[in-house]
């Protein structure tokens, strides 16, 4: 609800909605796929460096510890994404 109010302040109702609608049709899936691709690469990187958090030690802990500060913000979403139940319908939309 709060977001709706903010949105109204930011733009003019109908024009903004129309613009977003066209963006949604034309390019939103492209942006989503780009984010998914980047996300997959990052998650793979974290798996290699921090795999021991999930019981898969790949990199010697020294290097993992050096990288840890950079990875901390993503650890919770990474774990959930790695362990979440997936099937091929995930790729359909």
């Amino acid at each position, binding site marked *: 609800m709060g977001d709706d109010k903010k949105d109204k302040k930011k733009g003019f109702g109908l024009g903004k909605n129309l613009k977003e*609608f066209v*963006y949604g049709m034309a390019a939103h899936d492209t942006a989503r796929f780009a*984010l998914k691709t980047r996300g997959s690469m990052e998650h793979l990187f974290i798996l290699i460096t921090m795999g021991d958090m999930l019981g898969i030690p790949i990199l010697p802990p020294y290097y993992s510890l050096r990288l840890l500060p950079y990875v901390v913000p993503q650890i919770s979403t990474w774990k959930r994404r790695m362990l979440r*139940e997936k099937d*091929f*319908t995930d790729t359909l939309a």
Partner: protein
Amino acid sequence: MNSVVLPVLGAVVYIVGMRVYASYIDRKVIGADPKRATPARMYADGVDFMPTSRSILFGYQFKSIAGAAPVLGPIIAIKWGWLPGLVWILLGTFFIGWVQDYTSAMVSVRNDGKTFGGISFSFISPRARTILMTFIYLYLLLIAAAFTNIVANALANAPRIPLAIAMLGVAGVIVGYLIYHGRMHLAVVTVIGLALFYVALVLNGQFDLKFGSAHTNWLVWVVFALVFSLFGSLLPIWSFVQPINYLSFYIVLIGMAIAVLGLVVKHPAMQRPMLTGFTVGNMPLWPMLFVTIACGAISGWHGIVSSTGTSRQLRSETDARPVAAGAMFMEMILALIALAIVGITAAGTTGSPDQLFASGLGSIFGFLHLPEKWGLAYGPVLIAILAITILHLVVRFMRIAANELMGRVLPVMRVPAIGTVVALILTFVLVITGTFNYIWVLFGSANQLMASLALMIGSIWLVSEKKKAGFALVPMVFMYITTMAAIILTCKQLLQQAFTGLSLAGQKLPAGQVAGNWIAGTIGVVLFVAALVLAYDGVGALLRFRRAETTEKGVA
């Protein structure tokens, strides 16, 4: 009747459906709560789960569900006359279509953004998930076969457009490169891509692009469509599929805008008969109309989109109604526009769906004082583009599905090229041996069965949550019975022809067509058995939750 009445009726149903029926279900039955955290908010990972604006999601949902099927279904169904199609599109959307899309989204939202696979595993049975996944693979195969046929027919029947469709592929690669490597402004890149496409269309307008006899020519375009899909499946998605689909959006938008403008300006009368009969050829109105027009009234594909993409991006539960239900009502209007375009063609006009659409669009171009031949060329262009942009994505999905379903048993299926080639070979065999009408009906049946299974999952969830389930349960029963009847009828005809080697009219069939009837008939039987097992497990789950509810009341 005036053709503009169709979209106007659609607008009325849109307003009443959204404001009254959908609003009531959303508030009183489901109890959408703007304060409850959605999966997009809870798990915002910037990848799958992302709170997104309602208007963007509405556009995304509409684009994802509105492909070739809502345009082609009403065109194919015109053989029964325009009235049955009109009634089914309006009532189907009002009572069933939006219910499925909206419920699918809400089930997923209330279950941590799980897909149908995960939900069916936890709500129905472990085997339900495996059967559902196999079912979806066959469904994708039927989409691929139906749409390959559509593309090949459009290109073979309109020899002045294939160069433009091929150029669309080239333009897509160029656009992808310029966006991601050239870092050019999107608007400039879009103009370049569209210019390439339209120049090729004008160039091809000067000569016919044909190869040999009619059959050879058709075969060439079948292979072309499959090779196009091969690239779509194997190349990185940003370099081929996405830029092509992006450019296609504008090409289709221009065509549809002209069509709507023409209908509004001239508002011609419907020329086609209102009702031609309750049985046309070997296709009775019930149940065949209800699987011929799938998208536009109700479609299983929508449930998959709602439960995977949309449910993970909803910022608020109250957005589910305008996004999922709203996009369905919008698609209904698109289907009505397609019905109006084909309805204004002369009563005796026959041909494949692309020819009928081209004929209607040609007349509309004439109404706007544009050369009619432009419309005759643009019609098949739209049909080919709507079909091919789905086709290459579907083959890509089939490759991924083959990996997941068979990768453990047959490790070779994990190789992307192998999964793709298997998908393409299966599609090719089905296309060259099958009969388009049967393939379309089987595709529609698989689609509608998927929809009834989505409604079943929704109903089971509603019962498990102790909510009123009638609004989803009754449409589910109707769709399930209707679709199973359509599959039985289709399989009976296909297998009868396969066993006897004779057509329904008693003529001897060529060996290839007999083989095609065997293949299509077998796919139909597998779909039927899979749907039976899922229904058996589904009813079991429904009774289990119902009993649990009764016991709780007894204890209380």
